């Protein structure tokens, strides 16, 4: 149903332009990766199974990130406040840590709670994360050692990927996407009017 709704909104199956969307439409849709991670409660989280039927917004970052991560999370938290409850309930926001050493489950949960308690925090081995990033055509994690004893800086993708209910990501949201853009796009991605 979702897929047909998306098509009716102008999303071709092979990607291409989507008239009303403000995110960056990808030429080739990306299939949801087969990824098993650990949530902040310590349980296993099968990305495909757990997000099946939801619009999933996936972002790879770390809690010590000084710029991109807090801005994306704050923007999405603000978006949640503006969405109708039925739209909000159909969306899952997943924050996958690219710094599992420092992002302990408690630290990750605490950090995400500052934005929205419903945001999911996930962890995994860097090799697993990099493999998933590769499948999603995103750059891998790069650790840049901190200077003069400072904490390391973790290079990570700056875009949020939006996986539709059909398991395909056709739109990505780079840094700079605003709250009003999300509020416009999310109902469209769910097959509803903005």
């Amino acid at each position, binding site marked *: 149903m979702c897929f047909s709704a998306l098509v009716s909104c102008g999303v071709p199956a092979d990607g291409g332009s989507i008239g009303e969307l403000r995110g960056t439409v990808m030429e080739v849709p990306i299939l949801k990766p087969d990824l098993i991670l650990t949530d902040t409660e310590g349980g296993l989280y099968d990305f495909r199974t757990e997000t099946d039927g939801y619009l999933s917004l996936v972002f790879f970052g770390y809690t010590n990130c*000084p710029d991109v991560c*807090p801005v994306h999370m704050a923007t999405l938290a603000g978006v949640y406040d*503006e969405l109708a409850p039925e739209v909000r309930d159909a969306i899952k926001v997943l924050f996958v840590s690219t710094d599992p050493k420092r992002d302990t489950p408690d630290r990750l949960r605490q950090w995400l709670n500052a934005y929205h308690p419903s945001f999911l925090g996930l962890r995994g081995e860097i090799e697993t994360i990099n493999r998933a990033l590769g499948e999603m055509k995103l750059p891998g994690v790069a650790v840049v050692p901190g200077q003069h004893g400072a904490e390391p800086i973790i290079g990570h993708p700056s875009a949020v990927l939006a996986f539709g209910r059909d398991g395909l990501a056709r739109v990505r949201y780079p840094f700079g996407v605003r*709250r009003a853009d999300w509020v416009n796009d999310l109902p469209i991605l769910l097959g509803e009017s903005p």
Partner: protein
Amino acid sequence: MTWWCFAQPGTAWTWQWRPLIGVWLVMLLLVWGYHRLLSRVDDSDEPSRLRKSRRFSFALAVFLLWASLDWPLGPLGASYLASVHMMQFLAVGIAAPALLLLALPTATYEPLSRRPRLTKVLSDLTHPVSAFFIFNILMTATHWPGVVDLFMPTQLGSFALNAAWMLGGLIFWWPVISPVPERPGFHALGKIAYLALNAFLIRPPFAMMIFSESPIYEIYELAPPPAQDALNDQQFAGAVMKIGSAWIMFAGVLVIFRNWMLSESDRPDSA
């Protein structure tokens, strides 16, 4: 080398001190200009207390300008927090212009009488009606989201906005503060009404900041910490703009009212 604070979207804030050379130069220029003015203008006929209060007004104006434009408030307001940006506006666009005009000896205006063309232009610009419109149009334009997002990311644009605030503030306060003999008709009651009207006036940017469901300024919405919730910060900024400017205007009303009462009681036919 950074010479004026400007917005740097996506750049993380650090508490590392940064010099803002342009701000220091402007402050030095102001101090040098005031010193030069005082050496050229004869203010000896003014009471010593008034002369001291003029110098104090000038020092306070320079302090306000420096504190609000230099690090850390300058970069914080330019790039991270709309609420700090509005505090800068109160300092640069409302408080400092009033203090700078109060700092000028009456004799400053005497040369104007020898320059009728300049006097005419100045009189037209600073007529209460023109001043009201110029100030409010400038304030609305310089807080319009598209204008702020366009100008703030460059040093020149950011400087232009600050200069426009200062210019607007000087024009706004001129009919109230400057002893311009060409307008003896602007009575204390008129000044009180003029300030009260501006205190109560709801300007479009204020309404947008308070009532918009989304952040209206891109630079503050996409600012990394210490910015947190851009909408809360924006609403706080709206409150700062409205309540802060109203308090300054009401302070002006109180001073005018007090001076008016004192002058009435000093009249020979009073009592």
